[in-house]
């Protein structure tokens, strides 16, 4: 029965949306609390996912039922160590974002709640989908509620921002659709049957030239979503125009779908292309890190600053992913969560001040520390987390990514240069964040209107509390979060390497043996379990403190996979 948890996670918000759609418009409280109640149920349910034995790699909670049988399209969902935290991030941050929104959204509450519920459902679906067709459906479905959230409840340029967001994403995803269709038809050509199951499609070994094209199509869709430089231009618009809750979800969860897409689909399916284009993408990611940081520095609007900082931070995530070793990849996954928490919190904080002053310009503030001490403390903590100060979550993620990049085999011979440049990004992050903090909180109160500002209230505090908790929890006990993904990441990398070797052997269209497929369910037969246990035992000596061992682990991967 427990395998239906994922389906329930998708279905509960949807049921909630339908329920609220039928409810009478007058009762505002129903929509505010009802939507939160559905999300809370989802959150509790998703926490139960942690109870699985995460020492073994592979997918669990797999449900696989045929949907469109003519094309082998199935409703197939499952969860592994990579998607686990992202699902939890979604179930946690959606209610937080919605709760934070209730402070400022006063009109069309019914539709707002419905849009959020639908959005949550689609996002979870995207994270757990293992069938490419299903993935595409959820991926597209996500667009509509977000489009409406930005376009209906947004700021004054909301229509432009919403359209830009929608069209950018749609162009990318349509090309991805063509690529999906192409791989599907290649699988059909090889086997005579259709399938869009990741497990099946990842067995198709394609020649180099088609891999490059297909990977590029996937990469474009995901890079737009991430967003990577130079496809990032929709992001500042969408973020600044979106209502607070929309910005939070957009930054905290939706951007992760791009990086997740690289990890889950683009790289395992086209390892050869990923191998050859990897350094280029990493270089672009670094350009993004530095470019985003500089842009953030230049901003006069705090919300835009946070938006550009996302471009920079997600550059780190991309770098970690393409470093292709345990430290880099798990750092990237953790950093996805971290960025969700810290940027989400930042957007909420920006929303708080905007609600009071109706401006977000840095020059309109100053000396707020004296007026709103608690707010200042929270803002500084979040900034530290965003910068990556030791003790906060940001540090762990960025350190692991940098360590992974340093030791990366895939990024040779540029890995050291990459680390150097990326480290500049960390410094720049400190500069622009501290610059903002300084301008907003230090010095005398320069504006009359700022003198009477109320400090953070209970509701706002409640919205921020879980995020603050997580900032320190991840910062101080990273192993709680790294452990569940450890085995999955290692298995992921091993598969990736062996598939790469296998494909490199012969540049022709063929079907790989099933053991090279991605997206296989967790082993349930005894032999495989024993094997997994042995693997787990073999990993033990690397020490409990995974972070410290990151460098070692990185070099270990290098030697193990040296070809």
């Amino acid at each position, binding site marked *: 029965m427990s395998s239906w948890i994922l389906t329930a996670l998708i279905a509960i918000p949807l049921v909630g949306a339908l329920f609220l759609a039928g409810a009478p418009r007058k009762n505002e409280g129903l929509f505010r609390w009802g939507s939160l109640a559905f999300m809370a149920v989802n959150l509790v349910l998703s926490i139960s996912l942690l109870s699985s034995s995460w020492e073994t790699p592979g997918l669990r909670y797999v449900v696989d039922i045929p*949907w*469109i*049988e*003519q*094309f082998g399209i199935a409703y197939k969902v499952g969860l592994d160590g990579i998607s686990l935290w992202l699902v939890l991030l979604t179930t946690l941050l959606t209610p937080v974002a919605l709760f934070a929104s209730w402070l400022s959204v006063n009109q*069309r509450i019914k*539709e707002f709640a419905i849009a959020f519920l639908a959005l949550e459902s689609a996002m979870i679906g995207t994270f757990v989908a293992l069938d490419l*067709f299903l993935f*595409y*459906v959820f991926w*597209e*479905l996500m667009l*509509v509620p977000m*489009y*409406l959230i930005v*376009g*209906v409840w947004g700021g004054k340029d*909301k*229509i432009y921002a*919403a*359209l830009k967001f*929608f*069209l950018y994403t*749609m*162009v990318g995803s*349509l*090309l991805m*659709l*063509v690529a999906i*269709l*192409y791989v*599907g*038809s290649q699988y*059909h050509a090889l086997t005579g049957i259709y399938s869009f199951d990741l497990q099946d499609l990842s067995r198709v070994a394609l020649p180099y030239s088609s891999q490059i094209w297909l990977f590029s199509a996937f990469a474009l869709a995901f890079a737009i979503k991430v967003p990577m430089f130079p496809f990032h231009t929709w992001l500042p618009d969408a973020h600044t125009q979106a209502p607070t809750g929309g910005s939070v979800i957009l930054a905290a969860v939706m951007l992760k779908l791009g990086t997740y897409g690289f990890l889950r689909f683009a790289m395992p399916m086209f390892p050869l292309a990923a191998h050859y284009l990897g350094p280029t993408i990493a270089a672009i990611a670094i350009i993004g890190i530095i470019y985003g940081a500089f842009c953030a520095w230049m901003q006069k609007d705090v919300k835009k600053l946070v938006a550009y900082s996302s471009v920079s931070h997600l550059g780190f995530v991309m770098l970690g992913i393409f470093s292709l070793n345990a430290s880099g990849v798990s750092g990237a996954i953790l950093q996805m969560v971290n960025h969700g928490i810290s940027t989400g919190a930042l957007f909420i904080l920006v929303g708080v001040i905007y609600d009071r002053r109706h401006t977000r310009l840095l020059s309109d503030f100053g000396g707020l520390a004296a007026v709103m001490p608690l707010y200042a403390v929270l803002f500084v903590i979040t900034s530290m987390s965003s910068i990556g100060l030791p003790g906060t979550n940001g540090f762990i993620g960025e350190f692991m990514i940098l360590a992974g990049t340093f030791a990366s085999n895939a990024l040779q011979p540029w890995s050291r240069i990459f680390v150097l440049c990326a480290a500049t990004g960390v410094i720049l992050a400190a500069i622009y964040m501290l610059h903002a903090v300084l301008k907003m909180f230090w010095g005398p109160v320069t504006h009359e209107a700022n003198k009477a500002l109320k400090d953070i209230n209970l509701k706002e505090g409640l919205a921020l509390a879980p995020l603050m908790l997580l900032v320190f929890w991840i910062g101080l006990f990273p192993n709680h979060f790294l452990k569940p993904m450890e085995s999955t990441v290692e298995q992921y990398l091993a598969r990736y390497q062996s598939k790469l070797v296998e494909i490199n052997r012969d540049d022709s269209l063929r079907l790989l043996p099933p053991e090279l497929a991605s997206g296989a369910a967790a082993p349930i037969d005894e032999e495989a379990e024993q094997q997994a246990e042995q693997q787990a035992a073999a990993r033990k000596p690397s020490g409990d403190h995974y972070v410290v061992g990151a460098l070692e682990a990185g070099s270990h991967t290098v030697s193990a996979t040296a070809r």
Partner: protein
Amino acid sequence: MLDLIIRFSPLVLVLVGAAAVMLADAFSDKGQSNDLSTVTFWAFVGASGGAIGLWVQGDTMALHPLVAPFLAADPMALLLDAVIAGAGAITALLAGAYLREHQMERGEYYVVMLLAAFGAMVLVHSTHLLSVFVGLETMSLGVYSLAAFRRTSPRSVEGAMKYFLLGSFAAALLLFGMALLYGATGEMELAAIATALVEGSAHNTLALLGTALITAGLAFKVGAVPFHMWSPDVYEGAATSVTAFMAVVVKVAAFTVWVRIAVVALSAANLADPFSGWPPLVMGLAVASMLVGNLSALVQTNVKRMLAYSSIAHAGYIMVGFVAYAHSAAGGDEGAGDQALSAMLLYLASYAASSLLVFGSLIWAGSKGKEVVSYEDLKGLGRRHPWIGVAMMVGALSLMGFPPTAGFIGKYYLFQSAVNVGDGLIPLVIFAVLASAVGAFYYLKLIVVMYMEDQEQEAAQAVPMRSVHLWAAIGLAAYFVFRIGIAPGNYMEIAIGAARAL
């Protein structure tokens, strides 16, 4: 005789419906209100049911020799009968709501509509040039007069006149093509033409010329660029219920007969060669239609005109399926060919459902004296009347090709079948998806004006009409949009079956 009536029960039922409407209209008192639209609706439902029943029964008995050369009763015809009758049923309800609201209800409307639909159904059954011609003209004459039905409106009559003139011109082209094909082969039955062409006893040049002219004539009927000039004007001018009927029924029937002619008659290797026969011609039409349709739709201010251009673009997408068919047929891959054809059929059905939903919502949004025609009229509608907004949004998303609606499945299936042909068509598919991304812009504009723009206080607000007929029509259309969108499996099966039997 009884056997024939049963075999062609969809057509017969539509005719009976027309007769019933005519009688009811003739023998009723002046002031007495007749619900002719309901009669029409049930006639269409009966026809649709008849087609489904015949499909289920799966009768393959030979037809009477007098009928056999002209009309087939094969699965494809039955499937399209069901689609046309279903669309007819929904448009009958729309007409019942629209005409009454705007006070132009007259009995002739339903008679002409039923007979035009009859023509369309004859067209999808046709296996002979003669019945193709007669069916096409029956349908067209009916639609011409429906387009001019709102005769107090200069726009309506003007659009109808343009449509009539260009339509007759295209019919003449088609006819000339048929004459040349007849001259080349000495045959008029589609299958016999194919035999003559394949055996090589035909005159090649005549056949090629004939093929080109027939393609041009049919391209006109489906509204493909460069034969599309009539469609924006007539879409805009005609009463909205007529536009809906025209957009769906004419397009579906014309595409079906095109499929039949191309697949059955023009299948000879030299004519259907992917690089020198009609396929490159169709490919050119497809590319031009997608390009011109989408780009022109971007700049429209009138929603009906926008939908006209969007229907041109949709014709372009459907023709991608045609090209895919030609390529796979030339490659000898029968399975892929059937798939491409069935993708076209499914696309037609999904296009029908989503168009009807959009047109229905457009009708819904306007009431007497305040018809909704421009984006301006729709401003803020989604906020004031959420259900209309939702209905139109779903329709627009479906036309855009967004999951989980019928439009997405249609596009998916079509593009999948084109990709399956091999690498040769990938550029075309990429072009098509990029074109549909352009298309997204103007469909989103609908959502933008409905939800995101605020209406000025002094501007006249659109007041929705209230009609049970209309709600029923919207409900039906929405049902099919989601039904095909979420569980398309058995529809695909049916479409494949129809294509295979062709």
